[in-house]
């Protein structure tokens, strides 16, 4: 254990102020759930629908060939509920075991493109899945919402206040693609990033880790609020749904400048090197941004993680759900093995920087063909 001064982190680190009584437990991911809409929208189709026919090779620029998009009858709520049910189907917990349920989506569409503020979406999800015992609330933190909620649940589980909680997010954000397609004229448009979005629902159950299972070994977050206005989203003026205005290049630049020391701090705290990380999963924006970021990390740290996950080609950027879409699909594909060190790096509007590190365990047994 480091002394109090050495333990001062720029990130807010679970238990990191180091004056605490011993926190008795660890938490771990017990199950994950995923819901993807059936309908596919290719980047080519999306650009063909653009009002001003911008001459942009978006597929080459981002590596995104297609994304899933909601059909009538699907929205943030239905995606979240279906993901929560899938999560429960992979879990040994019943809905009534869930003591805290956090809905972490940015979009809160229920009943079509109707963004509901009150009652909170979390309450509707809790009722729909039968988690009567759960304390529920919504947490919004842009694309960092799911991992920020993991940060919160981790704290409640580690303190022993609860044994089992769920974080869930249904992101119905394809209206931003459609609204951007009406307005984008060139590669310099502040709505260009909106053309990369896809819909998805994810859920995760966290539980008290069994003795000897390290579970989540690091959870830390910070907000570099100097950059809070680089990406702004809200209801659209041109049509139903939302619109988002992003200074994407600036966000990438400041994220690359500011995240390495935070990542280094997280790794040092856990006694790991970047080379010890089996899978680095960053927020999925575009293949180019992910690989460029990975190269910059490699240059900065002198080593690389064993795998850098990029799944945007067929999913696009699914906002707060990206890390969990990737985790789920890698689990289903049998890519992970017990003991793998997984690092989830969140970079989101705010500017939010978060790191969650966990060791993969028998979670792998519940997914894929072997299951």
């Amino acid at each position: 254990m480091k002394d109090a001064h050495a333990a001062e982190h720029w990130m807010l680190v679970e238990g990191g102020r180091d004056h605490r009584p011993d926190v008795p437990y660890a938490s771990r991911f017990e199950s994950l759930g995923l819901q993807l809409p059936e309908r596919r929208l290719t980047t080519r189709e999306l650009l063909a629908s653009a009002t001003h026919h911008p001459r942009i090779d978006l597929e080459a620029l981002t590596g995104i060939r297609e994304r899933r998009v909601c059909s009538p009858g699907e929205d943030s709520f239905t995606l979240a509920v279906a993901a929560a049910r899938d999560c429960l189907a992979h879990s040994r917990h019943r809905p009534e075991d869930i003591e805290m349920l956090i809905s972490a989506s940015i979009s809160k569409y229920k009943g079509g493109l109707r963004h509901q503020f009150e009652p909170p979406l979390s309450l509707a999800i809790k009722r729909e899945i039968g988690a009567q015992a759960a304390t529920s609330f919504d947490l919004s933190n842009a694309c960092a919402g799911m991992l920020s909620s993991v940060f919160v649940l981790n704290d409640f589980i580690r303190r022993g206040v609860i044994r089992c909680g769920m974080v869930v997010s249904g992101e119905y954000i394809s209206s931003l693609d459609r609204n951007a397609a009406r307005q984008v004229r060139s590669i310099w448009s502040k709505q260009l990033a909106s053309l990369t979005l896809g819909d998805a629902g994810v859920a995760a159950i966290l539980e008290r880790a069994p003795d000897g299972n390290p579970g989540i070994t690091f959870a830390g977050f910070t907000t570099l609020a100097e950059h809070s206005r680089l990406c702004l989203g809200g209801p659209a003026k041109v049509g139903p749904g939302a619109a988002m205005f992003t200074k994407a290049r600036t966000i990438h630049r400041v994220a690359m400048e500011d995240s390495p020391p935070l990542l280094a701090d997280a790794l040092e705290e856990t006694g790991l090197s970047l080379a010890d990380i089996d899978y680095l999963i960053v927020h999925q924006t575009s293949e180019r941004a992910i690989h460029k970021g990975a190269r910059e990390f490699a240059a900065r740290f002198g080593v690389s993680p064993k795998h850098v996950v990029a799944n945007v080609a067929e999913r696009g950027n699914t906002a707060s759900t990206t890390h969990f879409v990737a985790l789920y699909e890698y689990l289903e594909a049998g890519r992970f093995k017990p003991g793998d060190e997984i690092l989830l790096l969140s970079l989101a509007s705010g500017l939010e920087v978060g790191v969650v590190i966990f060791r993969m365990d028998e979670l792998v047994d519940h997914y894929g063909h072997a299951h």
Partner: protein
Amino acid sequence: MGTRIEAVATAHARHGPFRQGALKLADEVARACLARAHRAPGEIDLLVNAGIYREDNLVEPALASMIQEDIGANPGHPPRAGAHGTFSFDVANGGCGVLTALELLDGFMRSGTIETGLVVASDSGPGGRKSFPFPAVGGALLVRPASDGEGFVDFVCETFDEADGVFESAISWHARARRLPLARPGKNVLRVAQGEGYERRVIACAEEATRRFLARHGLDAGSVDLAIVSQSPLGFADGLATRLDLAPARVARVAAALRGAHTAGPIAALDAAIESGQFAAARTILFATVGAGVVVGLALYRK
């Protein structure tokens, strides 16, 4: 080690063409709260915003991050080793959001994750719409580790069926019936609707949950020295006091301009109780909040 209240601040929007929106209100109360506590913005470890309605109905980023930037709480760049930054996010739980935020801060305080936390809540009608039912009010509350036995003891959040009264708010697209040249085809509009039976229903739910909560701590309504309660719906404070048989002197009352304040209501009530001396005199303090759903959020604070 739990959490104690260190300072509170409240503000309502000035009238006139330059009235503040939710963000400016939040900035103002956050600064005032820090000033009252003689604390620097950089001391905040965690900033949680529990307000719901804001300018342009912005949904990204979290309003908390913009407040953090505006008040200069470790806005970053570059993050320094050996120093701490600030983390911020929003929670939404209707009129119970402030207690939800406090429960999270209390937890992080107990786990040694934070030493200083700030809860901010403010609401304003997007674009100053006249149909917006709540006054534009902001509140901020600074918390520190409990000391001398003073602090939050317990939080609970209960949900009930809505039964005969509903409260709903949502943004949806309203297309123009006739399309004029150069005019927008329609607009996204915020609608806030409170059913007739809503107030009666939340009072009944809050009474039931409060009696259960107090009994769990070996208390009854007669042991409550001071009740800090939601200010919306408008008749909630009086209604709950009557049902629990709480004397008027034991219920915090806000100034006329703050009546009906939504997410910031409990903070406004606490601020009024501190101002009137009720808070200093009280030993057992009950926080009782209600939100659409129906959600009842309760907390017990002891000195």
